[in-house]
């Protein structure tokens, strides 16, 4: 499975390229409208082509990500999958209560994290050693909050709340508690 880090690298490249192009376009436009030349009406065909381009772009973005980002389909249809492991986690009083001290996973396991809040709205995210995020979800009280993830490589991960739950919840961190072993 493509790692979420790889997806972010692709996104960074695509958005950076877009930013460079749009900034250069605006610079060019600013030079052109204040430089010598005659004001000409823009042809409607150009306008309609632009509208068509935006429509294709807006729709195709989601189709492309759905078909290339591996967790997108699995996430929307997670009830159709049978997890290899399930961890039931409770959150209360700004603390995570784990089923065991370490959550041990084998490489290639599909794991369901079922997180329940007993008071406030929290977040649940897995983070790598370098603080980069692997995934996250919201943890809403009174509702089922579950996420299925396919672990295809070894690693050690930290759980951190990704949602603000008041000043008391800023450092809701369980360091290195998720271990993915060969």
């Amino acid at each position, binding site marked *: 499975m493509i790692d*979420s880090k790889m*997806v*972010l690298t692709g*996104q*960074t490249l695509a*958005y950076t390229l*877009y*930013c460079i192009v*749009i*900034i250069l376009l*605006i610079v060019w*436009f600013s030079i*052109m*409208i*204040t*430089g010598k*030349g005659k*004001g*000409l*009406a*823009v042809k*409607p065909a150009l*306008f309609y082509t*632009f*509208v068509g381009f*935006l*429509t294709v772009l*807006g*729709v195709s973005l*989601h189709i492309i*990500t759905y078909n*290339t*980002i591996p*967790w*997108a389909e699995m*996430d*929307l249809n997670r009830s159709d999958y049978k997890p290899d492991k399930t961890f039931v986690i409770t959150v209360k009083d700004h603390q995570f209560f784990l089923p065991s001290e370490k959550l041990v996973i084998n490489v290639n396991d599909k794991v369901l994290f079922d997180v329940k809040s007993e*008071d*406030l*709205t929290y*977040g649940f995210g897995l983070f790598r050693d*370098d*603080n980069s*995020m*692997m*995934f*996250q979800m*919201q943890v*809403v*009280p*009174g*509702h*089922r*909050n579950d996420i299925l993830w396919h672990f295809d490589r070894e690693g050690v991960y930290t759980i951190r709340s990704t*949602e*603000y739950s*008041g*000043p*008391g919840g*800023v450092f809701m961190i369980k360091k290195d508690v998720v271990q993915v072993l060969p």
Partner: protein
Amino acid sequence: MSFINTLINGEEGLFKSETLTPMQKLTLRFVVVGLIYFGFVVIEGMLMRLYEVKPLPFITESQFFAIMTAHPLVGIFGSTYSIVFGAFLFLVPFLMKKPLWSIKLGNWTFILVTAGTFIFWFAGFISHYAPLYTLYWPLPADFTQFSVWGGTFFIVGIALVMVGSAFFVINIFKTITYTPDGWEKQPSKALLASALGITGFKNLFTKNKKEHLVPLPVAAVARGSVDVALNTAIILFTGVLILVYMVASILGFDLKETAIDALLYKNWFWWGLDLIADGLVLIFVAGTWYLLATMISGKPLFMQNIARAALLVELIVSWTVWSHHLLADQAQPGFLKVLSGEMVTAFELITQGLAFFITLATLWSARPLKMTNPLKFLIGGLLGFALAVPAGIMQADVGLNRILHNTQWVIGPHVHVAVLVGLTMTLYSAVYILFPILTNGAKMYSQKLVSVHFWCHLIGGIGMGAFMGMAGLKGMLRRSLYINGEFNLYMILAAICGTLLLIGFLTFFYNIVMSVGLKGVIGIFTPSKIKTKDLLPAN
């Protein structure tokens, strides 16, 4: 002219507040207060930027989050609403060529927005009430973390702003439809239909097409005001709900928090809140771009009928996109995530793209143009939205949201670039173009300072958003704290860009004060000596 003389009397003594009409004074009061609150926001923003690099010893963690709670609300209501309401209460009657329906109601809007903002800001400052603007249930009613009294005053302050907003909406629609004394009876229903886009919609299906009775920018203000009204109702209702819990707590009753479904509440609140971010802001901005483009170029708007239709589409789209804020909520139904969260949200790329293209094409038709202050700030505003809207569309994707939600990406390249560069530079463009009209011909103190303001704001705004975004892509959360310098490289660079924004704002503020003088600023707040409902003095 000496420095002191200019500071007191303004540039060349041209600004004379005693020549201002009540309407000019009302608008200028809104603008001055809006800019002062923008100053609050910039200073709060800088404090948070520095805190993200290294926690400041004189700010506690609870105070940091109280600042984070007040910061966007002061920015949206105290600053943006003030400037936008002031400008539109002037521009709608100006474009409709008749007086504002009620100057008194306009003054009440001013008083309520100004006082309400101060009350919630002060309540947060004193009590550290900090449920953030999202108010995720049951956090606003969590009195183990927050003071119930602080929260009560906070919510009352917000409610006052909402009442002021409701008065604004009434004034706008009444101004469009009413018949001034001594005038021939105005076709109220037809004017309302034109303003809301019903006429244009009917024209699609009839041979005898009716003419548009209201100018395009007025149609934009009217349609944006529909979202203001809906948003006001949602926030007021939510405020009352939270107040019920607060009053009960004060009286010694502990109401069950579970009586409110947290997810349903989240849907309800985001539906209302999104009417600002994805509704009235985009509609008001598009209308303002169109007005500015036609004023700067002196040409008719390119594809005017399409632009009108797009404003109506944007209004409808704004009612159906809220679910992109709930893509990380696993209990949210999948069809809402895909349909509302992804597909309908993608329409914003189209509607905002149309507005972008139409504005550029209108300016293009008037080549060569002089790079005036309104033009350069307008181009800055266009660039801001061109950068920020695609960043938002990317995070409104089921796949990408899984690794972007609640990171600095959301608040940096999307929110701050949209608000600071897109929206604020558009507002600055409007301020620069309206300045001579509202001040009866006052002159800017320094053109060089305008340029300093422009470049500091543009580079600072884009730079800050970019570095926050880079940190977000590396996993840095928003609404959180990192005390071990985990993202210091990005946070230091973002703080440097934030400093540029602060310098830009101070330069602008100094330039404006030197242009109108301290006497002039005070004069704006004294009652007008001219008894007229006209917008501008007769001479």
